[in-house]
């Protein structure tokens, strides 16, 4: 495109190159800068207008802040179980880990097959559009709502929690898996197709080995998210776990010693998870992750 007008200059690359190099980024940059400034302006404007309206009237902020700091201090510096035993907290932690594991594993298996229908180099456009739209709809409904809906439809308990959380898991993983599959060179796929390799052998011999490592990283990231979700919404579904203990300690007994203990238990699990996930990610996923 750009080389067209400069065709006559082809003999003197030293003269033409700086010109194209100089022109292109500036032109792009202008549009980029305008968009960036516009986004920033909207964000700041909204914030400045919003903050005064949310300052509560009946609350003394100084008192509230010092109360918050006191409670934080109790939480972080004097953690102790009081309304329940350490053992039952540990059991609860494992229940939440189990919930996160189940929803990740099931989500990953289902999502892999659906992603094959949502990848540009494998499926026809109409199918991709249908699948991606359905997944976007599922993602748009917050996890907590899925869990509440299933806890009414299936009754309170682990079943509702697993299925409600799996929904979101699948919708998220389909998107990232399909993106990973899209990155496989279409040339390589058509080369193997031309050799007479059928669809399922292509999936197992080409697609899976090529994206296995990024699949692993993404699934691990989802495991982190699912654990956070299990902690957040497990209680709402009546699935028990650390979520229930946390809810009782903070919302029922107002016992911040115990909340602190629970937070430390959660940190003991999530921080190693975060480190592993970071290592996997920096090794296998090049671009910034979401």
């Amino acid at each position, binding site marked *: 495109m750009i080389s067209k007008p400069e065709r006559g200059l082809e003999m003197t690359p030293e003269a033409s190159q700086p010109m194209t190099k100089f022109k292109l980024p500036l032109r792009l940059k202008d549009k980029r800068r305008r968009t960036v400034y516009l986004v920033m302006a909207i964000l700041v404007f909204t914030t400045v207008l*919003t903050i005064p309206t949310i*300052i509560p009237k009946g609350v003394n902020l100084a008192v*509230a802040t010092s109360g918050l700091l006191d409670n934080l201090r109790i939480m972080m510096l004097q953690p102790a179980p009081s309304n329940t035993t350490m053992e039952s907290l540990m059991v609860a932690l494992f229940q939440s880990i189990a919930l996160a594991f189940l929803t990740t*594993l099931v989500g990953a298996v289902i999502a892999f097959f659906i992603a094959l229908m949502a990848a540009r180099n494998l499926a026809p456009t109409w199918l991709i559009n249908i699948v991606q739209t359905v997944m976007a709809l599922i993602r*748009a409904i917050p996890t907590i*709502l899925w869990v509440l809906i299933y806890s009414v439809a299936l009754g309170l308990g682990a079943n509702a929690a697993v299925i409600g959380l799996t929904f979101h898991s699948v919708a998220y993983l389909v998107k990232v898996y399909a993106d990973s599959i899209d990155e496989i060179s279409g040339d390589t796929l058509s080369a193997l197709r031309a050799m007479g390799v059928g669809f399922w052998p292509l999936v197992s011999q080409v697609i899976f080995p090529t994206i296995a490592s990024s699949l692993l990283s993404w699934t691990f990231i989802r495991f982190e998210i699912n654990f956070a979700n299990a902690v957040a919404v497990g209680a709402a579904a009546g699935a028990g776990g650390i979520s229930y203990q946390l809810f009782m300690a903070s919302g029922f007994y107002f016992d*911040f010693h115990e909340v602190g203990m629970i937070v430390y238990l959660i940190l003991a699990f999530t921080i190693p998870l*975060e480190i592993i996930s970071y290592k996997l990610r920096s090794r296998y996923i090049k671009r910034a992750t979401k």
Partner: protein
Amino acid sequence: MKNQVMDSSKFFMRKRLNLSIVIGLMIVLYVGASLILNFNSAAFLYVDRGIIWLAKNFVPNSHSIQYWGIILQALLRTLIVSVAATTVAGVLALGLALAGAKTTGPSQTLSWLIRGFASIMRNIPIVGWAMLLLFSFKQNDFTGFLALLFLSIGFLTRAFMETIEAVDVEKIQALEVTGANYLQVISQAVIPEITTPLVSWLLYMIENNLRDATLVGLLTGTGIGFVFDLYFKSLRYGPAGLVVLAIIVLVIGVELVSNQVERRIAI
């Protein structure tokens, strides 16, 4: 040649063995996790029930229309509170990230301190933050704002730090050797390099906060989450369905806008 044929048999055997071990382990863990949770795998057969239930009960009828005003107002509040929490968190996180990144920060110790702080902020569960804040700040939008703010600070600090560390050190050094001071290097070399990912992280965070706002609102009795909870618990499923619809439209709308912005600012 013969040796190699044997090698190849061994190679494929080992590969299959590894795969079998992984699959076996997953099955064992699956069964174990199901037992711990008291989860019945047959429940997957009833996935349709939720959808059917949703389609049957959550259909807004003409009666629900009268709730539009309240729902829209709550939705708007939720949106602007999410935006405000993300923006404030973004400003604070950028400062923390610059001070904590290996390439731009003053010391290793500070870097670890900030990393630890971000990690703790991120990993204190939403429920914990919500209850803690509710206890001191009572039931109002400010509580929801603070809960989202604290979660976002943790997340964005980590994201920004990784982004800054991805900037080529040589680009920073190239400016340093010209005699530019610290602030000049930051504003001329680091910030321009990270603007695009920064904006895209902010937009992602707004999307995420919108989703979390439902839960936070449910717990702290504010915004759209509170409105949903109110209708859901009083079995007014028509308006509850309207709330879900409104959330879907808002989240997808924000997603589309941020996709558009990302396309325009992509390098």
